[in-house]
């Protein structure tokens, strides 16, 4: 398992995509932007480039020749995707802290980069994983439709969440407030988001393994 992850880190994932979260994370410094977009860049750019790279380098065939199980092949790949997602969120969140410090008096129309927002961000990735990973493992090389459907779902979630955050007074209070009560609610949302991310990613992995078992390399 560890070897498979190292294989992706050393061969499969170009170094640039470990640097990319920093470049994209810096976009958090744009005041009052729709910060969902920062996370969506991962789905728009990193994922298609990565999976194209795997396809172009015959990664599937290469890995199948190694003494590894098909289950571990999926597990390692899912962990690599999750790892990169967390890297994106973590670095963006760090930039988010600076944004808050840099513009303390800004009135946010879209969600401010606070704890509650990151809870929603991680749920967006959870939805992306739940759709992309199982759809991709139907063939283990075609990712176009999987990407289209999963990105659309993630964007819909972000759009609806943002719309409700603006329109609904209760949600607006939770996500835009800075008081102790709102902070507590936001923390609960973040924890719930992490749980949803873990559960969705696990379900995605299980379905992907089942499908990948039927795939002929």
């Amino acid at each position: 398992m560890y070897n498979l992850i190292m294989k992706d880190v050393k061969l499969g994932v170009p170094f640039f995509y470990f640097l990319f979260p920093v470049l994209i994370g810096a976009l958090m410094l744009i005041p009052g932007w729709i910060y969902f977009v920062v996370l969506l860049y991962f789905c728009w750019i990193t994922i298609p480039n990565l999976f194209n790279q795997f396809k172009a380098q015959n990664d599937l065939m290469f890995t199948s020749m190694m003494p590894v199980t098909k289950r571990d092949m999926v597990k390692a790949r899912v962990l690599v995707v999750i790892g990169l997602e967390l890297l994106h969120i973590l670095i963006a969140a760090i930039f988010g802290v600076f944004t808050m410090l840099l513009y303390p008096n800004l009135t946010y129309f879209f969600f401010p980069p606070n704890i509650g927002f990151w809870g929603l961000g991680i749920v967006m990735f959870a939805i992306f994983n739940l759709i992309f990973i199982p759809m991709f493992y139907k063939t283990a090389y075609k990712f176009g439709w999987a990407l289209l459907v999963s990105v659309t779902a993630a964007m819909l979630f972000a759009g609806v969440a943002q719309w409700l955050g603006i329109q609904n007074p209760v949600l607006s209070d939770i996500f835009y407030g800075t008081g102790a009560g709102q902070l507590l609610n936001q923390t609960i949302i973040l924890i719930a988001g992490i749980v949803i991310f873990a559960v969705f990613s696990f379900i995605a992995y299980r379905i992907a393994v089942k499908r990948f078992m039927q795939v002929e390399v």
Partner: protein
Amino acid sequence: MLALDVRNVSKSYPNFQLRNVSFQLEQGYIMGFIGANGAGKTTTIKSILNMTRMDSGEVHILGKNMAEHEIELKQEIGYAMGGVDFYTRSKMKTLTDVVKRFYANWDDETYRNYMRTFKLDENKKIAELSTGMKVKYNLAIALSHGAKLLILDEPTSGLDPVARDELLDIFQGLVAGGEISILFSTHITSDLEKCADFITFIENGQIIRSVEKEEFKESYLLLNGAANQLNQVKDRLISYKINSFGFTGLIHASDYDSACGIKAAIPSLEEIMIYFAKKEDQYV
């Protein structure tokens, strides 16, 4: 001991069927696996390696069932494909560093020796290697993790005669110790004339024969006769070609009656392959 024991492997595709493929390879020998393009060589090899799902049948490697001991057995198998590249923009050094972690019996010393013997520079990228060098690199990897069974899918295709001959010498050197066995699929039959001990011949998804090489060739005869002699043997020929001098046709040695006066010779592997392929065409 049997290095490889394939038993009744069947697999159906919409346009192609592998039917009851069975053959055995003794440890310490080279088996040539021949057949025309699309005859089922690669499908068989992929079934052996558990890369495709078999409809039925079993594969045993070094006495163990592949389906049950896949991970353990893959430690003992070296696999090289001609014409398929992985991570071509990476240096061999990087690739080796990744690959070696997967193998419990990896030996750096052996690896360095083979890289030296094969004159491979670790700092070169895969894309910079010639076809022959790529095969050698794959072999170096396989041998460094102590593979006992080498499965080589068209390893000599695309190589020049000098490189092919060199590789064949290497193969023969490897099996000389009696421990390593090689299954070698190819349609370049002259390679097998030089180095194979056994021949397994597959045609249209079925194994025609799997025997010792000379016995394989001697079990057929190539007849050369005048046009008017064709009718005497026509029904018994596997297939035949008509030319301006008469005809040439392939026949099972057991079907040949020397009293008929038609000139007969032992065919080459290539001739056997061609006449069998021709037979298939006749029924299309």
